[in-house]
């Protein structure tokens, strides 16, 4: 009897709410209304609602709250259908726990042909397609042209790590702070150490370590030693250990340091966090890739950065997937690219990039044979934070290069 009533009532509900409120799709993101990509998200929603009659609800959480809340949210009935992701280990954990939906059957090959294969692959797990990509980014050395020329540095001469060290010495001698760094947030520091890993060990050793361990191998110890060489020169701004990422961006934008090792989003951030609100002029900024290390077996074209996108939770409907395919499409990505919102992954959209820095990054990434996703995302919540911690400890001079690699190895073992 009970099940009859249940079926009856759900039927009535279904019928009653059929057309207008067919399915309400919850889309969880971290882009405030002021951000450059928000308008097109709204536009995609409006177009989709008009086209299909579904309703879409956009939900915003700021970065740290998002990370704090997502695990519990995914386990409740209020879980979002679509949510932002940096891919990597955190995504794998979510997939393993069964919180993601395999949407391979809903995403046709015709769609997949329109996006960069590498980007799409980043959102698969053990053959399941659990999400769709949105953008890519790269970490490189941003520099202030004025300050560099004041110190007499010719950036095109920086080809090897040792050249960079020499440049730092020269800049310091000229009385200029060589590098802005946000030590309190830690992740800006880990970019340096891990990019050295990429140069020293390359893709092969990374995959080897990922699958079979060996994070304490000599190539990675070398990265620590090289980082210590840099740190000994005291290149960072005073009080860098208490500086957050916004502080770092603000300093750079205020012209207080010559270089900063940061992702391409530094372009917008250095302006908005600066004291004047304007930051450095485009003509005054430049970017160069992490130089090669001597004896490193990685390729000098290898890049470190992100492939970010959207994941589908286990109860996401087909409509949610269709919404994403509508949003991550040529038209919208072209417009966002020309606004400099992000570096697109839909084929051909990068042609619309007007910002020279983003263009440069797009080129770097498409030429790169090995684009490593940020270690602190890729390796998962636990190992990732260990990497951040030891990078900062290394930079603060309180642990040795061996200890740093051992800590990562231990964390990896613990998580097997």
């Amino acid at each position, binding site marked *: 009897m009970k099940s009859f009533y249940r079926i009856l009532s759900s039927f009535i509900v279904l019928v009653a709410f059929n057309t207008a409120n067919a399915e309400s799709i919850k889309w969880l993101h971290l882009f405030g209304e002021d951000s450059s990509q928000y308008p097109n998200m709204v536009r995609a929603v409006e177009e989709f609602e008009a086209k299909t009659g579904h309703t879409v609800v956009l939900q915003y959480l700021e970065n740290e709250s998002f990370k704090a809340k997502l695990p519990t949210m995914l386990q409740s009935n209020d879980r979002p259908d679509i949510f932002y992701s940096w891919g990597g280990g955190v995504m794998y954990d979510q997939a393993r726990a069964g919180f993601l939906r395999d949407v391979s059957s809903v995403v046709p090959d015709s769609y997949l042909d329109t996006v960069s294969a590498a980007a799409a692959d980043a959102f698969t797990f053990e053959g399941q397609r659990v999400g769709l990509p949105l953008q890519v980014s790269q970490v490189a050395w941003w520099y202030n042209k004025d300050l560099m020329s004041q110190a007499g540095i010719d950036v095109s001469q920086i080809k090897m790590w040792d050249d960079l060290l020499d440049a730092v010495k020269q800049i310091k001698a000229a009385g200029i702070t060589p590098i802005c760094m946000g030590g309190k947030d830690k992740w800006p520091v880990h970019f340096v150490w891990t990019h050295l890993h990429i140069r020293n060990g390359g893709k092969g050793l990374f995959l080897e370590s990922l699958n079979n361990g060996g994070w304490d191998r000599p190539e990675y110890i070398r990265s620590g030693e090289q980082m210590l060489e840099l740190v000994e020169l005291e290149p960072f701004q005073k009080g860098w250990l*208490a500086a957050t990422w916004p502080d770092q961006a603000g300093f750079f934008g205020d012209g207080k340091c010559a270089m900063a090792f940061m992702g391409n989003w530094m372009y917008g951030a250095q302006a908005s966090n600066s004291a004047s609100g304007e930051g450095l002029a485009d003509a005054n900024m430049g970017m160069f890739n992490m130089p090669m290390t001597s004896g490193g077996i990685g390729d000098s074209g290898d890049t470190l950065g992100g492939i970010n996108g959207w994941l589908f939770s286990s109860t996401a409907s087909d409509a949610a997937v269709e919404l994403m395919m509508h949003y991550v499409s040529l038209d919208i990505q072209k417009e966002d690219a020309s606004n400099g919102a992000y570096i697109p992954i839909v084929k051909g959209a990068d042609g619309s990039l007007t910002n020279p820095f983003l263009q440069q990054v797009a080129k770097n990434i498409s030429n790169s044979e090995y684009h490593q996703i940020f270690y602190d995302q890729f390796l998962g919540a636990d190992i990732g934070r260990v990497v951040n911690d030891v990078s900062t400890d290394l930079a*603060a001079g309180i642990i040795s290069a061996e200890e740093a690699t051992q800590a990562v190895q231990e964390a990896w073992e613990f998580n097997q």
Partner: protein
Amino acid sequence: MRSLKSQALLSRYSTLIIFLIPALTVFTLFVVLPIGEAAYYSFFRWNGYGDPEKYVGFKNYAYLFKNRVFIMSLKNNFYIIAVSLLVQLPFALLIALMISDKIKGATFFRTIFFLPYILAEIVTGLIWAYIYDGNYGLVATVWEFFGAEAPFIIADKDWALVAILIVVFWKFFGIHMMIYIAGLQAISKEVLEAAKVDGAGPITTAFRIKIPMLIPTIKLSVFLSLLGSLQLFDIIMPLTGGGPSNVTHSMVTYLYYFGVMRMKIGFGSAVGVVIFLICVFIAIGYQRTLMRDDNENKF
């Protein structure tokens, strides 16, 4: 007479049950059971998704006690307790003594001193992080006024904890002050009058009469301060995040940073259980030696 007595008994037991049930239920469901569950989780390696599956016995605890950062956070909690008991509480007492007499503006000062307690901890952390900023903060402005280059207190491994201790002091001395003021006002006027008549000055009165009569109050204040110090969390996160280089963690921030944020719920639970046991241990010891229970007003 007899029916009244049995009626009274019935009334007593029914009151007992009815009055106790609401609090007992809510408390057990939302505090005690979670403690039990946390204890259970502490024996697993679990990332918080689904159900705990990987049983690891006491491994989490073993790792904990060998961990350099946890040992440091234990020490930090100890420093916090020390500063609270040796600096903050005496200071609160001093202020309470100063303003409990009917001096002009007592109410004004009381309110001002209590304000930091009302301020949300995240907000306190944010404001003080700003003040301590070596480039633009208050500290920097003052230092530079005297012509020196301002230090970056929060970035300094040796001084960051001091910075935190100052904020803890700032935030909590108000509530202890209020407790002492209340205690002082409960001292009977006759005793104070008698002291005056005997020619005792304010300082003598304070030390010979007021403070001894405040002992029960002081005991309560110390008890609350001990427990509060062990649980310090919300102020540290926005100020230093436990840094630089993990030197300013308290046990609870350690729990949050190394347990919850790293999706190591089992490990985090183990830390929670350890904190709980330490608190219980201190509470029992404290109650046994210093606080008594009596049967006054019971019937």
